[in-house]
């Protein structure tokens, strides 16, 4: 009798992530393929960029390139709040949440797989804003690829942490979209998508330092526009690194704790 080695738990989880990602990305592509949905979704942030750019056009024009980059990166923030944060509630509405919780793999595996499928609309929105910034507002990029390659994963890791926290609270509140609509305006106000953190008055600037967004936008804009090296953006990268470590950990713990409490109270599928 021959015996095959049982796959280890890490490879099972990796396969679960991959399977969840493929399943969801197929669903997303099918959804986006209908009636120009992806195009409409991708064009939407251009109007936000236009509003900000028109405001700066009558004043500090030198900040237009910054907001082009920050609004491009803001597509990731949007995705972490409105896509990652709402995944579980969306599954609940589809009636598939309980089945997902019964799947023989870690909850985080399929959640990470589902979260990753947001790459389609995020990439489309980011690309559209970036191109619009170049064509409409004449912004020229001088990117430092290495700095971008270091900054972007740190920024994304921080946002995944925020998305996990949102996802957990979405399970508790049972209205994750409403919760997203509470949180996103706060992140917009303090995050620095519309202005660099350093230009804010004292109180909002202090509050902005409690979030990873401003650091991410600053480092990304410096790297994308001014060929800034890792050393040049260290003042933003060091706090961002801290957020990139702390937020996913905190997100995992908070998500697990909230998810467990919802399961214990038997409210997983209740509205």
């Amino acid at each position, binding site marked *: 009798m021959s015996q095959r080695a049982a796959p280890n738990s890490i490879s099972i989880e990796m396969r679960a992530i991959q399977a969840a990602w493929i399943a969801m990305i197929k669903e997303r592509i099918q959804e986006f393929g*209908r*009636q120009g*949905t992806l195009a*409409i*979704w991708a*064009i*939407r942030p251009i*109007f*936000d960029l*236009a*509003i*900000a750019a*028109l*405001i*700066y*056009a*009558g*004043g*500090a024009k030198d*900040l237009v390139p910054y907001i082009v980059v920050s609004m491009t990166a803001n597509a990731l923030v949007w995705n972490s709040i409105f896509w990652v944060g709402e995944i579980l509630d969306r599954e609940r509405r589809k009636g598939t949440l309980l089945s997902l919780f019964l799947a023989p793999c870690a909850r985080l595996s399929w959640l990470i797989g589902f979260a990753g499928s947001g790459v389609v609309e995020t990439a489309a929105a980011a690309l559209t804003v970036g191109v619009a910034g170049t064509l409409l507002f004449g912004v020229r990029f001088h990117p430092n690829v290495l700095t971008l390659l270091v900054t972007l994963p740190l920024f994304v890791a921080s946002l995944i942490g925020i998305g996990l926290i949102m996802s957990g609270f979405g399970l508790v*509140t*049972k*209205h994750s979209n*409403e*919760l997203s*609509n*509470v949180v996103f*305006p*706060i992140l*917009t*106000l303090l995050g620095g998508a*519309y*202005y*660099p953190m350093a*230009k*804010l*008055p004292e109180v*909002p600037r202090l509050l902005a330092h409690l979030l990873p967004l401003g650091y991410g936008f600053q480092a990304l804009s410096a790297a994308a526009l001014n060929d800034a090296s890792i050393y040049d953006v260290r003042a933003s990268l060091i706090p961002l690194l801290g957020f990139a470590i702390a937020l996913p950990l905190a997100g995992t713990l908070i998500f697990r704790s909230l998810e467990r409490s919802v399961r214990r109270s038997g409210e997983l599928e209740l509205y």
Partner: protein
Amino acid sequence: MNARQQDEAIVETAVATIAPMGPENRHTTWQSLRISLAICVATARSYFVRRSAYLVDIIRSPMYPAFYFLTLVLTYRVAGRTVVDGFETQGYLLVGTVGVVLWQSNLWASGYAIEQERYEGTINSLFLTPASRAAVVSGYALGSFFFTILPNIAVVAAIAFLMHLHSNVQNPLAVIASVVGLGAATYALGFALAGVFVLSRRANLLANFLQSPIYLLSGMIVPISALPYALRLLADVFPLSAGMTALRESLLAGAGMSDVAGDLTRLIALSAVLMVVGLYMLGRVEHVAKSGAELDFD
């Protein structure tokens, strides 16, 4: 008889029961109005009760305009602009926020009304009832007035108080007429979109998409004079821009009724066109529903 034919038979029976009313059963105009009003109030009550069922929904409602306003105040400040289109920046934006509140409220209430019924699985039942669809849409708008607009306006007023904003009102009637006109125009736009949203089957996407372009075209956030020429032409025929101008002039520049009469006339005329479009689109939805298309499906 298969399931589809059975469904059609039920619909035909229902329609046959409702439709051929003889003179003795036909409602007078007054009775029709009373029935429509009752439907409108009942829908508004239902909307209010459903929306206030969750704490997060209650908190969310007034938060967006307040935070958006503060974001824009900071953006203008960072841009170094203290005056916009001849008005103090904060005053300009505060009036713009009133427009944002009215537009958002009507977009997501009256505009989204029939789509909401579809989302909740009640659209087919709605089209089987003899209730006026316009009354249902208006009911959503009325519910939203109490659930969204009033709390939002209170928050906006509180912000104005805290920021010591100064108004220059010479004729309160002109301010009231401008607010009512702007509210009516946003309602008319929402009404026109109600049918479009359902037929598109992409209501959420379209509603999300339409928010910012309307801010731009109506001069809520940035002056229309700052827009490129082509967009300025579009803004000129867009009803909300006339309402925003009238409200700003009457609230911040002391304009009287005669000063804003032109804008208000344009507002009323364009709103009437939108109402006609809305009625036509609701008729189209009804036609599609009765011809067997499954509107409750995505």
